[in-house]
């Protein structure tokens, strides 16, 4: 088990390094010399050269990358060229928004996906199962921006229940904050629940064939107890993997949904950084997003062992 974890970690380090290198390369390819942007009207060749030297822009690309990497290892992600704030504080500022969105999305998606999956697994091939299979398939063709528009139209324009866009800080008005998150979370959850339902359903159908389920039935346990206590836990491995991937992705911000609903999360920070050519923010956020993804997947691997004793004892 520890060997497996160690192996995973060893594999992920080069992936993270390659991702940040790629970001560095792309950032350096973007047009527009930052020294000119920063100096604006006062740009003289001397001043530009001095500023470039100060920023380390006169160094070759690989040396700049190594300098940056060295700083990162010591915990210094640098400062934004434009605002002067540290990358760390900028990211931490935006992170709660993306995390709140992620939590609400997962609650909705799992809340809908798990019960429906159990119902489908119990009566697999039944009317509900066939209907939801079709719905899950049709959902593949519905991107988030379409769902967002339909939801805005129904809940904001027609019913006028929820705000169409905008963000209210949690400290200011908790209820207004929740309301501003409901539509974006619904949009994301709508994309996610069919996937969760499908994977849990097929795993559950397989689990229900196992001997120990037959044993539990023979003991005369109530069906609800068999399903929820005996079958659900060992069936949820793929479900956890998939939600883990989704959580990892959502920590990096839901770019399109955050843009549509004007939520100031990590995704919008990223888009803003690209538009403003703020390479330090871009670089820091990409590293953060990739690292978050890696960590979540790592935690998921550990959860397997907790959920299924067979993995813990190395028999699976």
């Amino acid at each position, binding site marked *: 088990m520890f060997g497996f974890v160690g192996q995973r970690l060893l594999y992920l380090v080069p992936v993270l390094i390659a*991702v940040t290198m790629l970001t560095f390369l*792309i950032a350096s390819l973007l047009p527009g010399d930052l020294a000119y942007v920063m100096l604006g009207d006062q740009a003289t060749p001397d001043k530009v050269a001095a500023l470039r030297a100060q920023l380390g822009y006169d160094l070759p690309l690989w040396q700049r990358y190594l300098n940056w990497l060295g700083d990162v290892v010591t915990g210094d992600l640098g400062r934004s060229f434009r605002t002067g704030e540290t990358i760390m504080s900028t990211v931490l500022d935006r992170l709660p928004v993306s995390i709140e969105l992620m939590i609400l999305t997962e609650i909705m998606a799992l809340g809908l996906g798990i019960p429906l999956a159990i119902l489908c697994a119990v009566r697999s091939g039944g009317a509900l199962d066939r209907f939801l299979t079709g719905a899950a398939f049709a959902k593949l063709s*519905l991107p988030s921006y379409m769902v967002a528009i339909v939801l805005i139209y129904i809940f904001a324009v027609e019913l006028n229940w929820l705000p*169409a866009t905008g963000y209210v800080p949690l400290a200011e008005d908790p209820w207004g904050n929740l309301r501003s998150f409901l539509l974006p979370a619904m949009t994301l959850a709508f994309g996610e629940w069919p996937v969760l339902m499908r994977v849990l359903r*097929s795993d559950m159908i397989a689990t229900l064939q196992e001997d120990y389920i037959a044993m539990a039935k023979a003991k005369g346990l109530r069906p609800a107890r068999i399903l929820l206590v005996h079958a659900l836990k060992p069936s949820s491995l793929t479900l956890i993997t998939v939600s883990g991937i989704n959580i990892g992705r959502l920590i990096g911000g839901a*770019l399109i949904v955050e843009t549509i609903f004007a939520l100031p999360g990590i995704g919008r920070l990223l888009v803003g950084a690209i538009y403003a050519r703020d390479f330090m923010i871009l670089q820091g956020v990409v590293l953060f997003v990739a690292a978050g993804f890696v960590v979540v997947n790592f935690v998921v691997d550990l959860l397997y062992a907790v959920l299924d004793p067979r993995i813990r004892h190395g028999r699976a």
Partner: protein
Amino acid sequence: MAVLDVGSDTSAVTPVRKRRGPGPLFLCAASWLVLIGMAAILADRLPMQSPFDMDMLGKRLPPGSAHLLGTDNFGRDVLARLIYGARISLSVGLLAPVIGVVIGGCLGMLAGYFRGPWETLITGGADVLLAFPPLVFALAVTTYLGQSIPNMILVIGILGIPAFTRVARAVTLTLSQREFVVAARALGATHARILLRELLPNVALPLLAFFLLLVAVTIVVEGALSFLGLGVPPPAPSWGSMIGEGRESLEIAPWLAFLPAGVMFITVLAFNVIGDTLRALTDPRPARL
């Protein structure tokens, strides 16, 4: 041939199960794609209004006799824009995955056939591309190279490479163990011959099915980029940018967003239906999901 062998095996075990052939849904999907495809190809010759002519007095007209599907925020004919939008969505949707299927397919086959350090390198590279936020890449490239249709095809095409690599590698891995490959090798066939004559015909079909599924994904991604204002530069119509423009007038003229969204949904669904039917036909295992 290998695919057929396995297929007859499974049908012998479960003779009751009927193979999923082209059903009515498949035919509907195919006819819709033919219709949209014809409209896109013949867009210039169809008797309809120009998709660019603005009419500031006839803004946001509801669907009616003068404009079959109404007019948009600038008084442009929505039907004409939908048909010209089909041109862009379909050409990006069909061309971008070609980049992925050629490059990703080659890399995946090499990785699955030769194994060893090549495989580690190629799958590692695919993992890096997968871990990299795709929209960042798209945003960066459109900022750097400018917004145009060829650039968008390039971006989406490159982003599709790792997925094709994985599919091609997985299929090649299992096929390489099969008797006909072993037999070819025993007969002294070169690597190139085995790859091209023995493996490629068998890898091609699963890749084609995956290709169609990726066409659907590509149309959605193109829509997302255009929706964010990073895709096709205006005033060229694209379904995504039409949805984006329609969003702003959702309260006054909801059909401006819903019409392109509906057309796009049906088109993407059609590609998914056809791709899935093909996948079910090429997948020798009986459908479990």
